[in-house]
């Protein structure tokens, strides 16, 4: 593997707004002193909470006998639905379909029925297994196919997007084909499992430390469960040990259970889910079955697309509505569909309630779009890259999405063309095809796929953020904002903004834990929007303080406001340079406020789900990836041999962090589409509920050659924070190139005549099955 010869420092200078500062917590991370929930000093008398889970996928609870659980020495109490003073409800979307603890019936294998509160976690874990529960089983609907067959309910209104006349378009198209693609789900596998610590205070107060991406929602849920106003509940999170969407809503249940225990007993209570319980209880990425019908011409131009995107949503709505919506929003990926209809089908099943996961349905939609491209390539005999290039959104025409938003800056063709050149896609493709002919067992394939990803929450009201910045009289600065740090480097970027604006050195600026007590009514840190939203809010707060300081300095030293500048050397005030702390101290004595809050809301956006029209996204982030793989035709084993990525992060706020997001996102995306497989048995029991059975990529699974570059000189057209672009989710999609490269390798079995229709995840078994099917096809 060659290390790309790149220096983040110079990249930052060339294309970015500021250089590649290391992660603000890096020295703490490496020395084990970064504090996560379970590392916090434990309050005196701390109790431990362990949930008791359903072992049936769908059943009436005939009796729940917890006597044996209560009888274990050290068990303080066992919580059931009856112990909840407020609402037994944690639906994040107001659906009232997600009880915190099961009442009367259970709807999936793994659903919490009760929670043991004990003096130690070990006692609670052992006691939880002693419950005697009698179930009366009901028919369980587990899969998309079963849900459709059973006419299962939908957990959300099914969105329809359409433009033009799809029926007519399909009928008129010279060529037409239809098919189906299956895309698997994905466990988040954040390394730090769900955890929360609740500490009761006076007058009904409850302080929580929760590993949550959405402190405000956790606060609301706890308040509802305890029947207290939100003002009594404070939720704090310094950092999460990974989240990826899995702690956007899924952190609420653990937090509520800890709060409930603390509330009931009047002592602090902690919950830290065992990995197996975590994987059994919490929702995952939605798996999808997408049916497509496409009309096109001999030149590979798409004329009409009709798709139905069905998702396994699990037992409750959770965020499935917006997730399936986002799959529709991305079922075009980077391509223009002249006549189009996209329909979502969010199916209710007796499985974990699927939830947010990096990309939020978008990647699933993109997998479907890319399958359509692949089908057309095989049908026309064109290189899939040419089909892609012929169908990308135009810049003046052919630029309206299925949701009637105009793509103003389509750069997909440029990015793909540039990447294809630098990674020598066409030459290598030719060479691999040659080599495959004389290699009976190991075949290689290559694919180059684009991503166009819409940035903004599609729930428009979520696109707001707050910040609170304090400058102290010694010139040190404390930054708070509504976003949460889960490893993505958000806090680092926020610190960089403050450093840049005040001209300060790193040690002068401290970012604190995110807490609902400092910045209220925040949105989840999700949808890649953390830096976009909070960055602008931080900037707003800083600008307010700066404006006051400028005004003060101008008056004090009798210079024009314009001649006051915050520079690394100090604050330039007319001809003299004043140390920042001297200025702040002087300002304090002059009774100037050195604290300000900031606020931001994203302009221009709107979305109407009823009409399927609007501008849900402020802008798009672009990129492309080229992957080369080797596949063993005897076993289906496979390896990623080389990956080249060119990605658009606008003017990167921090090139090193952004490249880290791209490398990490790619590997996670490739894992999703290859080795990561969720397996439920017929009883609805998830059998892959630990890392022993659920395999995320390990060190040797990263590409042998891995070249990642940021698109240079590409400022965001929109006025985002320093013209940067969001970078959390889009690079996840680059993993799609691996699926297509494997497919390309398999296509060699039919001399590249048949679309392999390789479904995801492309596990060794899936690959072997596909290879067998292709061999049979070739024989006929």
């Amino acid at each position, binding site marked *: 593997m060659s*290390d790309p010869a790149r220096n983040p420092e110079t990249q930052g200078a060339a294309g970015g707004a500021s250089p590649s500062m*290391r*992660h603000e917590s*890096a*020295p703490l*991370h*490496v*020395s*084990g*002193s*970064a504090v996560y929930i*379970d590392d916090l000093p434990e309050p005196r008398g701390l109790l431990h909470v362990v949930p008791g889970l359903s072992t049936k996928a769908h059943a009436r609870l005939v009796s729940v006998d917890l006597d044996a659980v209560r009888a274990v020495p050290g068990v303080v109490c066992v919580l059931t639905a009856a112990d909840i003073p407020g609402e037994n409800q944690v639906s994040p979307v107001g659906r009232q379909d997600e009880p915190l603890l099961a009442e009367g019936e259970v709807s999936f294998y793994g659903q919490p029925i009760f929670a043991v509160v004990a003096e130690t976690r070990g006692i609670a*874990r052992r006691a939880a297994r002693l419950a005697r529960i009698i179930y009366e089983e009901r028919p369980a609907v587990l899969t998309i196919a079963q849900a459709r067959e059973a006419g299962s309910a939908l957990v959300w209104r099914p969105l329809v997007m359409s433009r033009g006349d799809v029926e007519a378009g399909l009928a008129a198209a010279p060529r037409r084909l239809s098919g189906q693609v299956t895309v698997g789900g994905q466990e*988040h*596998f*954040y*390394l730090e499992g769900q955890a929360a610590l609740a500490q009761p205070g006076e007058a009904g107060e409850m302080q929580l430390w929760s590993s949550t991406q959405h402190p405000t929602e956790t606060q609301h849920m706890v308040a509802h469960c305890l029947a207290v106003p939100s003002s009594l509940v404070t939720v704090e999170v310094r950092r*999460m*040990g*990974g*989240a*990826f969407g899995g702690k956007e809503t899924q952190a609420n249940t653990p937090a509520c259970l800890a709060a409930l225990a603390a509330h009931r007993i009047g002592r602090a209570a902690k919950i830290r889910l*065992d*990995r197996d319980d975590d994987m059994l209880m919490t929702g995952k990425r939605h798996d999808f079955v997408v049916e497509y019908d496409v009309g096109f011409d001999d030149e590979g131009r798409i004329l009409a697309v009709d798709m139905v995107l069905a998702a396994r949503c699990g037992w409750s709505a959770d965020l499935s509505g917006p997730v399936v919506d986002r799959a529709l929003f991305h079922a075009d990926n980077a391509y223009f569909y002249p006549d189009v209809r996209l329909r979502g089908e969010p199916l209710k099943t007796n499985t974990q309630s699927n939830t947010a996961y990096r990309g939020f349905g978008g990647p699933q939609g993109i997998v479907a779009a890319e399958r359509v491209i692949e089908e057309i390539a095989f049908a026309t005999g064109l290189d899939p890259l040419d089909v892609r290039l012929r169908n990308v959104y135009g810049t003046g025409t052919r630029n309206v999405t299925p949701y009637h938003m105009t793509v103003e800056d389509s750069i997909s063709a440029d990015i793909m063309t540039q990447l294809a050149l630098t990674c020598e896609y066409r030459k290598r493709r030719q060479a691999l095809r040659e080599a495959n002919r004389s290699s009976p*067992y*190991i075949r290689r394939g290559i694919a180059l796929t684009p991503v166009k990803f819409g940035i903004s929450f599609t729930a428009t009201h979520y696109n707001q953020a707050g910040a609170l910045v304090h400058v102290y009289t010694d010139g040190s600065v404390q930054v708070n904002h509504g976003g949460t740090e889960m*490893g993505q480097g958000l806090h680092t970027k926020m610190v960089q903004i403050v450093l840049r604006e005040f001209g300060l050195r790193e040690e002068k600026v401290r970012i604190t834990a995110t807490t609902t007590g400092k910045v209220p009514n925040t949105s989840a840190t999700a949808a890649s929007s953390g830096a976009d939203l909070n960055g602008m809010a931080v900037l707003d707060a800083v600008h307010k303080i700066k404006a006051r300081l400028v005004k003060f300095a101008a008056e004090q030293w009798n210079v024009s406001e314009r001649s006051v500048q915050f520079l690394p050397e100090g604050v330039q005030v007319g001809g003299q340079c004043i140390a920042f702390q001297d200025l702040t101290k002087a300002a304090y004595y002059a009774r100037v406020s050195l604290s300000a809050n900031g606020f931001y809301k994203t302009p221009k956006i709107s979305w109407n789900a009823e009409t399927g029209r609007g501008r849900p996204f402020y802008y798009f982030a672009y990129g492309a990836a080229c992957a080369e793989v*080797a596949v*063993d035709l*005897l*076993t289906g*084993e*496979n390896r990623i*041999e080389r990956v080249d990525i060119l990605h658009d992060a606008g003017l990167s706020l921090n090139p090193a*962090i952004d490249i*880290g997001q791209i*490398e*990490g996102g*790619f*590997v996670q995306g490739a894992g999703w589409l290859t*080795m990561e*497989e969720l397996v439920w048995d017929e009883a609805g029991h998830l*059998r892959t509920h*630990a*890392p*022993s*059975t659920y*395999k*995320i990529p*390990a*060190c*040797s*699974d*990263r590409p*042998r050659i891995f070249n990642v570059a940021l698109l240079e000189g590409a400022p965001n057209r929109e006025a985002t924070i320093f013209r940067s672009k969001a970078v959390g989710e889009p690079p996840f999609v680059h993993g799609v190139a691996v699926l297509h490269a494997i497919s390309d390798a398999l296509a060699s079995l039919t001399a590249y005549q048949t679309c392999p229709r390789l479904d995801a995840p492309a*596990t*060794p*078994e899936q690959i*072997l*099955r596909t290879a067998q099917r292709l061999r049979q096809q070739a024989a006929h």
Partner: protein
Amino acid sequence: MRHSIRFYLGSVRHEISGVSPTTTVLDWLRDACRRTGTKEGCNEGDCGACAVLVVRLEGEQLVWRAVNACIQFLWMLDGAQIFTVEDLRSPDGALHPVQQAMVDQHGSQCGFCTPGFVMSMVAYCKTPGASMAEGAINDALAGNLCRCTGYAPIVRAMKQVLATPETAQGIQAEQALAESIKTRLKTLQGDQTAEIAGAEGRITLPASADALAAAYLAAPDATLVAGATDVGLWVTKGLRALPHLIGIGQVPDLRRIEHTPEGLWLGAGVTWAEARPALAALLPDAGEVIRRIGSTQVRNAGTVCGNIGNGSPIGDGPPVLIAAGAVLRLRRGDTRRSLPLEEYFLAYGKQDRQPGEFIEAVVIPVPHPATVFRAYKVSKRFDQDISAVLGAFAFIPDGEGRITRARIAFGGMAATPKRARAAEAALEGQFWTEATLHAAQTALQAEFAPISDMRSSAWYRQTVAGNLLTRLFAETGPHSAGTETRLAGWKGEAYV
């Protein structure tokens, strides 16, 4: 007789009596010592977030190993020096070079996996002959999962450390540290059997194989623990109470790796990490399979004989060793017997072992120079995954090229590790031709009926088992030259 366990954590000596048999090192570190730098990511040995460094004095040599603290029992530290991430900074607070490299290369994102990586990296740096080769680094880090970074920056950090020459000052500090560790560890040496009893049960740490034989005969219901990479999970996941454990991992006369007239002798205390070079020298492909058993941390603790003792149908050791013709040495009190390894596995969960009897060693005969030996592990993920199927094959071509003494064994294909007798018979006495291959494949299909589970379907197992014969043919048959046949191992560094 001793009634406490003794070890060093950092520079502090701990002597603990009444320790629970099942308290893990991780829980003790986090709960009792408040050393929260060591993380729990899975509590089953799969993620490496809990990796710590264990140092032992072997002869005059200090041996540094990373192990997963979540599935090591506290008493297993007896006689050792342990370091956690908190011990790495130098006294002046400066970061350890590995920590600094991780900062420089942006090797942490959420940071939760980071302490574990740092410990594995430090352990790798202490490995004699640690190389910059990608494959070697991958192996060193295979037991540490990171969900954020995609590993690239961590490998860059590893290379930064390896590429930076140590300063004279650094070398001096290392040597001083080594000397002080040696001095400390010598104070823990002794030849007494230890017996530690507490409220939750007792632990016997026999000082010799004879003491073990006597202790186990007297308490045949006790549980033997070698590396605890299986037993640990009975506790952390099965929540089993184990009232009496007999620790055999540090019994000196069970730690022998010896070339005897019968072959390579691997004592019951020999770990996979220790066995690998010796086995790889005999049978390169066995070395390649071992490279993929668990991870570095798992192989540093888990033993070859524990793998056999566990009796799992999906254990990787048994099929490889059966194909190699290994013989099991069992001992009960003073009675010893030998058994071809394949005869040890009677049925699912049932082995040919009497109460009070234990495995003393497994002996692998030195292969005939003409032996053809291949072993193929097939799993969903290359590294640190349990096999869906493992096929191991041995035969000796006679002077004319006919196959003789064929031994084929599979894991994952039946309720026990099992020889493919029908396939062997189909090969026996035949020239190695396509026709022979097909005959063996047909025989193989008839003699196994594997199950479907979360790792793979019966169809996959059955198909792959047959295909592994194809691979064997492709690698060892008449047209084998120049054909690429497998992906395991990195290009140019494949197997060995």
